[in-house]
């Protein structure tokens, strides 16, 4: 069964002054796959993410996202367009929820583009245009479904900042999903979670992938999560790719083991 490429990263490089954080990294993330990017600290994983999601402009290389006949060159798109037009959503290493806004509001903001359209750039909305009201109801319903999925419906009207850490992480993922992405980039989702919570999160990601058919790009240190759910693993070290393949191959790869020497992960 040939896999359909979703994201093609080719010779991606990122230089900051004299430091090369990412050095000609190439890999492909396939549609409906969970691709993990792993590597020791400082390997350049989050930098790759930041290049993909428009927070850094790559010094060199190309990032091509292609699906359903549409193609997007992410290295040329302006930051917010990557989420809005290309459909690449992300979560952050340090959870970045809108802490002072409610759980529900976080999910409604994520549906901003659609709601703006339906409200005719807010003017229609100002005067109670019916299509806007319908769109808002639909947005709330979509949010409710997601909240049901993660068990936060009862806390929908609470401030997002008051949720326990694990719930915040899940909410952030759900918020990213509310933008209707093609590719979901998740940055260390298991950080700070205990093994039980990590396993639950791993199942959650697989469930999302199965139900919505999106591609997931995952940075993670927790090897049980990585080995458990990844279809494909890319290993970085000192900004370069040192391995690329199925999880089972990577586990036994001597270069990978050497890179991690001294760092024990189950």
């Amino acid at each position, binding site marked *: 069964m040939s896999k359909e490429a979703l994201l093609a990263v080719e010779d991606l490089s990122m230089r900051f002054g004299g430091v090369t954080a990412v050095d000609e990294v190439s890999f492909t993330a396939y549609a409906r796959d969970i691709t993990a990017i792993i590597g020791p600290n400082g390997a350049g994983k989050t930098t790759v993410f930041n290049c993909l999601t428009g927070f850094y402009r790559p010094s060199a290389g190309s990032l091509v996202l292609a699906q359903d006949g549409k193609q997007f060159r992410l290295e040329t798109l302006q930051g917010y367009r990557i989420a809005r037009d290309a459909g690449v*959503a992300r979560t952050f290493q340090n959870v970045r929820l809108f802490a002072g806004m409610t759980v*529900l509001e976080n999910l409604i903001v994520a549906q901003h583009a659609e709601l703006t359209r339906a409200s005719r750039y807010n003017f229609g909305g100002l005067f109670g245009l019916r299509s806007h009201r319908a769109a808002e109801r639909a947005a709330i319903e979509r949010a*409710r479904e997601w909240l049901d999925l993660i068990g936060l419906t009862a806390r929908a009207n609470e*401030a997002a900042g008051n949720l326990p850490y694990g719930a915040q992480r899940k909410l952030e993922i759900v918020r990213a999903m509310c933008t209707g992405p093609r590719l979901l980039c998740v940055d260390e989702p298991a950080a700070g979670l205990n093994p039980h919570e990590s396993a639950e999160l791993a199942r959650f990601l697989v469930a999302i992938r199965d139900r919505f058919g999106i591609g997931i790009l995952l940075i993670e240190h927790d090897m049980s999560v990585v080995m458990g759910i990844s279809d494909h693993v890319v290993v970085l070290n000192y900004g370069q790719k040192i391995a690329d393949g199925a999880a089972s191959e990577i586990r036994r790869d001597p270069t990978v083991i050497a890179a991690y020497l001294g760092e024990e992960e189950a």
Partner: protein
Amino acid sequence: MGWAPRLKDAALAALVAFALALPLAGFQTADTGQGFTTRFDWVAIAAGAAFAGKLLLGLVPRRFHLRQRAARRTALPENQAMPIAGAALVAFAVLLPVLPFSSRALVDLATVALIYVMLGWGLNIVVGLAGLLNLGYAAFYAVGAYSFALAAHWYGLTFWEMLPLAGLLAAVSGILLGLPVLRLRGDYLAIVTLGFGEIVRIVLNNWSPVTGGPNGVNDVPRPTFFGMPIAARAPEGVTTFNDFFHLAYNPMQRVMFLYYVCLAAALVINWFSLRIRRLPVGRAWEALREDEIACRALGLNPTTIKLSAFAISAMIGGFAGVFFAARAGFVSPESFNFQESATILAIVVLGGMGSQLGIVLAGVVLATLPEFGRDLAQFRMLFFGAAMVAIMIWRPRGFFSTRAPSVRLDPP
């Protein structure tokens, strides 16, 4: 805590107060020449007050410390009393001119209060909702006032013609301010807006051929009642309001009319600002305030969000400027200095950034304070400066720190 450390703390406070008070309060320079008088009694009072104050503060048990109580950040549930209080306030405002204790001065004062409230709501959009600290808001106020005054002076345009135009011009100037500050962070953005405000004031003050320089423009017309001026006499061929309704002219009528126009505008702006919070752009403003990076990651365009905040808040400032000019009958640059911007900021901060009602109360208090004795007026700004510091420490979200969510999930 034992008495020895408490006394030591209090003594330290007294020493600091002494050092602060001695040079400036202890010696008062004369207004002219090199004379000065000593006022060491003030220094002693300051030191004593500090000693007593610190001692008393130290005696308040820990659990009553206000700062710790306010530390939790929550989106508090919607305050049920708000709509009722609001309705009562509106009713009072509508009836004000015809109440028995009313007078021309009172209605005029109420008009001033309304203008400040509108300015507060306007600034609240950009500071309270979008979290962009604008220290030059008086510039938009000035744009509105001056464009009306100058258009009337040079081209004979009327109040009603200029109201929408002035708002539009102010909105444009809002965008012009917004463009350079798009990529600036909080502190830098604030300073640049301050610079912008000063630039506008300096230009208005010095471009005499066009703006009238320091003297300003002093023939600003009043609003007409469907084209009929409210006046004792009118130019040839123009019917006055009084002629039409067969009423003797009374200055109170003019003041009342302007008051009701302002009240109507204020109600519209109130409706608008409440409504816009529930629209995508309003939520986007609040999201931007919370975390701009997360906004970008969700596909929100920070540029349009920021520019819309600047434009809309500027537009409201512009409207307020037109009312200001119409009420005073003249405009001059000194009404639009940094002190004015700071005052409006004080209204938003003290009233509670994001709270409609809080801003109303703060605006009314601020407008009426000078009336309670001329002496108090001197202390007004001193009080507001201290209050701003205190509010940030004690209740950063202002006195009315409820943040009502813009949308709720009700049980199915």
